[in-house]
C-alpha cells in the first residue's frame, strides 16, 4: 500500500539497525514521547532489533492515560444523567475511573456513544435538540484543533445543547517537567511527529538548549522510528544537542498555522493536572471565557468528586519513564486489559497495553 509499505521495508530496516549498531559505543536511554510510537515499536517488533545498549523509555504521550481520574469520574457522572448523550473517542471508554469505566456506565443505561470525530458529536447535537450532547475532549496538540473546531462550529450554529469536557494537555511543558526532575533518566527524545505537524518544533529549541539534549521529531512507521533512533543516537555520540527533524514529509518548523489559529481562538493555556504525574504549570488548554457556555464542567453540577487511584498501580512512574510495565507487581496478574487497574493497560497508546498485547512481558522476563 502506497505511503505505508515504503516505511515498513525489511531490508531498509536492517540497514538502519546495522547503522545504529555501528554508531553506538555505550548505553543510552531514549524516550519516545508518544504512546503511538511505543505501540509501533512493539507491534512491528523493531524494538527487539535494537542493540541491548539502547534503552527505550516510554513517554507520557498517551492522552487517555494522563487524563485525571477525577475528570473520568466526572464524565461518568455526567453520562449517567438522563438528558445527556456522552460522546467520546473509543479509546476513552475503557479507561478506569475510581470504580468503573464509561462502557459500564453504558451497560447500566447511560447513553454513551463512540465517535470518530468531535464534529460527529456536533452533528448529534443538531439532530437531538432536546438532549445535551457532551464530547469528552482529551488529547494533546494533535486532537485539540479538531475539538476547537467543534466548539467553533457549535457556536456558529448557535447550538446550546453542545458542550465539551475538556482535558487538553501540551507536550513541551511535560518534557520540561521530566527533564527538570532529579530522577530523570532520559538522555534523548523522539518527539511526537503528529504534535509537531500541528505546532511545529520551534518550541522545542529552547528546551534542547537549556537541557543540552537531542530532540528528534519522529514519525510513526517502523522505519521512521529506526531513523529517529539513529539520528538521536548519532547526536548523543557526537555530543551534540538541538532539534532535528526526521518527519520532514509532514512537519515544518512553524507547523500548521490555520490549526494554530483555531486553537488560539477557542482555547487558552492553563495549569493542568496529569494523571500519575501531578500538576504541571501552563501544560493544558481550557476554553476561553467567551466559549464557557460550551464547558461541560460549568454546565453540569455533579457535586464533589472524590477520586481514588488503585494503590497497586504504578502508572505515574511508567508515564515518567522511571519504570517499565513489567516492573509492576500487578502487571499481567491483577492488572490485565480485562481488569485494568490503570489507564495504560487499556489505552491503544498505553505502554502497559503494548507490553501485554505484543508480548514484551516475555522478552523482559
Amino acid at each position: 500500500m502506497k505511503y505505508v509499505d515504503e516505511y515498513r521495508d525489511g531490508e531498509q530496516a536492517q540497514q538502519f539497525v546495522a547503522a545504529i549498531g555501528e554508531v553506538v559505543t555505550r548505553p543510552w536511554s531514549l524516550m519516545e514521547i508518544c504512546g503511538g510510537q511505543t505501540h509501533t515499536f512493539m507491534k512491528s517488533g523493531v524494538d527487539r532489533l535494537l542493540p541491548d545498549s539502547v534503552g527505550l523509555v516510554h513517554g507520557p504521550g498517551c492522552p487517555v492515560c494522563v487524563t485525571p481520574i477525577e475528570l473520568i469520574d466526572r464524565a461518568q457522572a455526567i453520562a449517567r444523567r438522563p438528558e445527556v448523550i456522552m460522546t467520546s473517542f473509543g479509546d476513552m471508554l475503557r479507561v478506569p475511573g475510581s470504580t468503573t469505566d464509561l462502557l459500564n456506565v453504558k451497560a447500566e443505561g447511560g447513553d454513551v456513544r463512540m465517535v470518530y470525530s468531535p464534529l460527529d458529536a456536533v452533528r448529534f447535537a443538531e439532530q437531538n435538540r432536546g438532549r445535551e450532547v457532551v464530547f469528552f475532549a482529551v488529547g494533546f496538540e494533535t486532537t485539540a484543533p479538531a475539538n476547537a473546531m467543534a466548539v467553533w462550529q457549535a457556536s456558529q450554529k448557535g447550538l446550546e445543547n453542545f458542550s465539551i469536557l475538556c482535558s487538553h494537555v501540551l507536550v513541551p511543558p511535560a518534557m520540561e517537567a521530566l527533564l527538570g526532575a532529579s530522577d530523570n533518566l532520559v538522555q534523548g527524545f523522539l518527539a511526537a511527529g503528529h504534535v509537531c505537524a500541528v505546532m511545529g518544533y520551534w518550541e522545542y529549541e529552547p528546551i534542547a538548549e537549556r537541557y543540552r539534549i537531542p530532540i528528534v521529531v519522529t514519525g510513526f512507521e517502523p522505519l521512521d522510528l529506526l531513523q529517529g533512533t539513529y539520528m538521536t543516537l548519532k547526536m548523543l555520540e557526537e555530543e551534540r544537542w538541538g532539534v532535528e527533524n526526521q518527519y520532514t514529509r509532514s512537519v515544518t518548523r512553524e507547523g500548521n498555522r490555520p490549526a494554530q489559529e483555531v486553537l488560539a481562538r477557542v482555547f487558552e493555556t492553563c495549569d493542568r493536572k496529569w494523571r500519575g504525574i501531578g500538576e504541571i504549570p501552563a501544560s493544558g488548554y481550557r476554553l476561553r471565557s467567551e466559549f464557557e457556555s460550551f464547558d461541560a464542567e460549568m454546565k453540569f453540577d455533579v457535586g464533589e468528586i472524590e477520586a481514588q487511584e488503585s494503590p497497586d498501580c504504578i502508572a505515574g512512574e511508567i508515564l515518567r519513564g522511571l519504570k517499565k510495565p513489567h516492573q509492576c507487581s500487578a502487571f499481567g496478574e491483577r492488572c490485565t486489559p480485562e481488569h485494568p487497574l490503570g489507564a495504560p493497560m487499556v489505552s491503544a497508546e498505553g505502554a502497559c497495553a503494548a507490553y501485554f498485547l505484543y508480548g514484551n512481558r516475555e522478552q523482559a522476563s
Partner: protein
Amino acid sequence: MKDPSDESKGPIDFALSCPLPISDYPTVQLAHGGGGKLSQLLIEKLFVGAFGNAALEQLHDGAVLNVGSSRLAFSTDSFVVHPRFFPGGDIGSLAVHGTVNDIAMCGARPVALSAGFILEEGLSMEELWRITTSMKEAAEEAGVEVVTGDTKVVDRGKGDGVYINTTGLGLIADGVEISPRRARPGDRVLVSGQLAVHGIAVMSVREGLEFETVLETDSANLYPLVARVLERGGSRVHVLRDPTRGGVASALNEIATQAGVGMQLEENSLPLREDVRGACEILGFDPLYVANEGKCLAIVAPEAADSVLAAMREHPLGREAAVIGAVVDEHPGKVYLRSRVGGMRVVDMLSGEQLPRIC
C-alpha cells in the same frame, strides 16, 4: 412448590456459586459477545460451567454427536447485525451462511436448518419478506432446507427490528476427523481468501464511513470449498474454523490453547485487499481481529499443504487462498507474527471490543 415471593435464596445462591467474578463485571457488556477474551471467559466459566459435557467442552464451531451409526454435526448461531442490509448481503443470508459454515467447519455436509425469528412490533412486512426471501435463496444455494422454525414478537422498542437464530444439522463422512485439538507442530495454517472484508464492509455502512470504493461483505456458503478441501486432504486436514467475530487472531489463539501448540504467522503472507488495509490503517484496527464471513482457516499436515491450497484456489471463494503460517513446538498456546519489517511479536486474543455487534 417454591414460593415465588421467597427471593432470599436465589440471588444469594447465585452470588456464591457464580464462576465469573461478579464484582468485575456486574453487568453484561458488548465485549462479552465480541468473540474475544471476555466472550471466551463468559462461555468457559459461566456456560460450560453450568452445562459442561464432553461434546460442549470441545469448544468447536459445532458439536459432533454419534447417533446410531452416523456422526452428526450440530450447531446454532444468532444474528443481531445492524444495519440489517449491508453491501453484498443482509441479516437473512448471513443467518443461513453462519450456521451452514459452522456445520461445514466440523467437516460435515449441512442437511437441515431451523429458523427462529424475534421480531419487533412495527417492523415493515416488506422488509421481513426481503429478509425471508434472502434466507430462502441462501438456503437453496447451500442445498439445505429450513425444516422447522419459531416466531416471537416483542414490544416496540424491545428489539432491533429482527433477530434471527438458526440451528443446523450436518452429516460427517467417514474418515473425516476435524478437531481443534488435532493441530500439531509442523502443520501449515491456510486461509481461503482476503481477511477482514466483512467487518470493514458492515462498519463502513453502520458508522457512515465513506471510502472511495464500496466494500461488499464476503458472506458466503463455505461448504463447497470445504468439501473440496476434505476431498483432497482427507484425514490430513486437522482443523477447520471460520474466523468470524474476533477474527483470525482470536480463532488461532483458541486453537493454539486447545491443542497446546504454538503458531507462527508471516505478516507478508496475509491476504489483504488494499482498501481493507487502508481502512484498518485509518481506523487503527488490526485486520487480524476484524470479523470475516465466508472465509475458512484450515490447519493441515505439511505434506498436504500444497494440494489443499490448490484445492482452495480452484474454487471461486478460494482464489486468493494463502499459507499464512505454521504450527510450531515453541511457545505453546501463543501465536507469534513476523512483521513486514522483520520484527517479532505476540498476537494475543482480542480483548474487549474492536467493533460492536457485527454478527
